[in-house]
């Protein structure tokens, strides 16, 4: 792509879709929660669960220790539920889905249509607050894999939901997690039965369409004994002047010998060049390696959002369990990111690996904040952490805030971090071989991120690579 083209390239996914919406009454009150619960036809226990969270929310205070500060959010001014009107009578098949919705997703390039089965991705698309359609259902059903909107799971599989919902992120965890517990609207539910390898990548697509809405989705993934699943998540939002809140909760549970791979490409609207608008991405993601020999791997490519504030974490409870975290966070213009991970080692012989790559350009601020905590009973545990930051220009910032705790003598913790700029020699070398400045930077940055990009499933890796280049447009020269 030529540099001229790059410069003019605005946020590609910034279109809005005109669809009639049904909204919950404005504001955060008990009435809103009753409304959401009623419209979702939820059982009584679910409503009670929500109300418990809401009660707790009243005592909690919004945290303020994070690096990127933001103007106070008026929670009473938001809509907590927004659904396209045509969804009221839920479509049974794709033909019944509002063509406009399908069009939106086509613009985004999601293989919603089953004809695109070759791409081998089963998609659960969340539009504002409800799941639109889930593809590939039949095939998954055969294997006993449950992949459906969480609102459906609450009705169909209440025992599973009751058992695991809130078991990794308790309802009283922290302000945004509790807010989500009270008002979450939809999200995905995945259950992989014992000794099953999910034959395809499962995928969710999130999109915030309506204005003044927050999106509060909740994802719960359970990998039973000896199972494997790879899950992808992508996000976009239209351009709007006001800041929109996205406070999702994602819970993963891996039992004995199970493995979950969770990949995210986050491309929410980052705000314009002057930092007006954009999404506040305050997400709680946490996985529990409950069983022995279980494994959870997080991969994230964070290129969007005005503020990204999240720490996908692993609680390594089972002996020999493994946690991994691979992250690329790119911030440009006025974007801010405060992201990282927590690896909490509780079981014996647990291992964790953290690779974080931060890139700051323009006037952006990028923080890696992470915790490695090795408990006194987590004998023979091991952690390796590497955080590298790349700075472009002297108006941006790159920060590293690792917390390291080691409480026994047989465990080893290693941490390394570097901060640097793009090497002039490398740039010169690329220029010499006929690449222009933008192309050279893009090449070098992609090399810098390679360790993380390799972790992504194929379809995502290509998209992510493109995103990396686009996100940095106009930041050099």
């Amino acid at each position, binding site marked *: 792509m030529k540099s001229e083209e790059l410069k003019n390239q605005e946020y590609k996914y910034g279109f809005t879709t005109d669809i009639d919406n049904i909204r919950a009454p404005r504001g955060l009150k008990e009435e809103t929660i009753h409304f959401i619960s009623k419209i979702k036809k939820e059982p009584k226990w679910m409503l009670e669960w929500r109300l418990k969270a809401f009660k707790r929310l009243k005592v909690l205070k919004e945290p303020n220790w994070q690096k990127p500060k933001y103007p106070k959010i008026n929670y009473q001014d938001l809509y907590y539920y927004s659904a396209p009107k045509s969804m009221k009578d839920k479509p049974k098949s794709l033909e019944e889905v509002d063509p406009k919705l399908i069009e939106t997703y086509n613009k985004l390039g999601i293989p919603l249509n089953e004809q695109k089965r070759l791409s081998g991705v089963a998609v659960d698309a969340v539009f504002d607050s409800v799941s639109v359609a889930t593809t590939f259902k039949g095939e998954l059903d055969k294997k006993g894999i449950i992949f459906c909107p969480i609102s459906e799971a609450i009705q169909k599989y209440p025992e599973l939901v009751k058992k695991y919902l809130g078991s990794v992120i308790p309802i009283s965890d922290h302000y945004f997690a509790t807010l989500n517990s009270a008002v979450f609207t939809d999200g995905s539910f995945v259950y992989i039965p014992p000794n099953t390898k999910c034959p395809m990548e499962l995928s969710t697509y999130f999109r915030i369409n309506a204005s003044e809405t927050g999106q509060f989705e909740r994802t719960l993934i359970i990998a039973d004994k000896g199972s494997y699943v790879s899950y992808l998540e992508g996000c976009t939002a239209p351009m709007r002047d006001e800041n929109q809140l996205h406070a999702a909760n994602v819970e993963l549970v891996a039992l004995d010998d199970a493995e979950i791979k969770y990949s995210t490409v986050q491309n929410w609207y980052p705000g314009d060049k002057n930092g007006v608008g954009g999404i506040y991405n305050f997400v709680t993601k946490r996985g529990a390696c409950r069983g022995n020999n279980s494994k959870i791997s997080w991969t994230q490519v964070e290129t969007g959002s005005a503020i990204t504030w999240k720490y996908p974490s692993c609680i390594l409870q089972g002996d020999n369990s493994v946690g991994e975290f691979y992250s690329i966070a790119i911030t440009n213009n006025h974007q801010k990111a405060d992201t990282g991970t927590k690896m909490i080692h509780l079981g014996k012989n647990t291992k964790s690996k953290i690779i974080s790559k931060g890139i700051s350009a323009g006037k952006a601020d990028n923080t890696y904040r992470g915790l490695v905590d090795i408990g*006194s009973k987590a004998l023979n545990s091991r952690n390796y952490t590497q955080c590298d930051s790349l700075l472009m220009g002297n*108006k941006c910032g790159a920060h*590293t805030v690792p*917390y*390291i705790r080691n409480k026994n003598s047989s465990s080893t913790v290693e*941490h*390394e971090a570097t901060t640097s*700029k793009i090497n002039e020699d490398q740039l010169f070398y690329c220029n010499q071989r006929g690449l222009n400045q933008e192309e050279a930077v893009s090449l070098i940055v992609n090399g810098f991120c390679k360790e993380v990009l390799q972790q992504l499933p194929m379809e995502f890796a290509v998209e992510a690579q493109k995103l990396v280049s686009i996100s940095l447009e106009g930041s050099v020269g």
Partner: protein
Amino acid sequence: MEQLFNFKLEKISNFSNKEMLERKKNLNFFLEKGFPNKKDENWKFTDLNSIISKNFNNITNNLDFKFEKKIDYIQEFEHNSIVTVNGSLKSSDMQFEDKGKIKIDNLVSLEEFSLHSNNNLYHLNKALTLGGFDLEVKENYKCKKPIILYNYFTSKLDNKIINNSNKIKLNQNSELILIEYNICENSKFLKNTFENINIEKNSILKNISIQNNKCNGYFYKNISGVQGYNSSYQNFLLTSGLKFNKVDVNISLEKENSNCFILSGLNLNSGEHQEIKTKINHLAPNCKSYQKIKNVLENDSIGVYQGKIYVKDIAQKTDAYQLSKALILNDLAEFNAKPELEIYADDVKCSHGSTSGSIDLDAIHYLMTRGIELHKAKKLLINGFLNEIFENIPEKKIKNFLEKCMEYQIDRL
């Protein structure tokens, strides 16, 4: 329940009304929040309030400075000496130096009262400070011999708190090696020190802190320093043996080409807790900072390192490095680290590393196959691990002395 503390301002006399008023204000600030606890990010790994509550009751400010004994001076190398007793300046002897080149005084007036500190111990210090010294080295004077500052703590300090403020100033083109040497009798007390350091153009300050024996004292020391063009500050923290110690170093490299070294080698034994917290502010281009923190942790000891490198946007060509390493020898011991980088300039070389783990079993095996018994092999490795930080001390006699001190400490393990 008995009170945790009972501070009386009236007992400290001889201030002007204005000063009394300021002291009262500071005391009220302190009383509002009390001792810091782990909710305060700076005290996250060291909950001072709970540590103090567990070990003290009815703490009062110390007013006892009586001292009759003779101090055993260090014989290994020639030096000048300053003696403080319970934090108060007793005597000084600059026998090796030219007259009038080094000024040492009791710190009497407290010029700067600031009420904008979020460190509550600062308010406590400003309210109760008594004693402390003001040390100045004149322009173009390089001290011929090091100065040893003997800090003596008597046995009558149980449940007392000592609040000191010190000032150290090195005028242009001067040099000083200052060794702080603590000697403690058996008493359990608190010491809260705030030290201001000003190192002017082309000057060098080497500051070594060392402990001669086990001490039941609970020490907090806050060092805030400002460095001029081409100046150098080197701080060696070797205070093994203290029950509790937290050193809070805040250095601003304000002018070009200045450098700052913070090096620490500690071996902690049962019940000991030491924290080193640093903040190095790179405010000008071409400055260098280097931090190396090494801990050996035995029994149920706790070692903490919280380091921060801040690089301002104009501070290009900064070279900053942080390294913290811990050898954990017991499952009850704990090591916590938070090596932090905050960087706003792009043409910099900033990195940090942190490791913690047990002794390398292969190395032990290697030594044992060569006929060295396990106990000795371990000591040898610990010694090697800690000795590395002495590399930066060129004065041979001092280096030998420090190595001997270290060996003695390791033998006690």
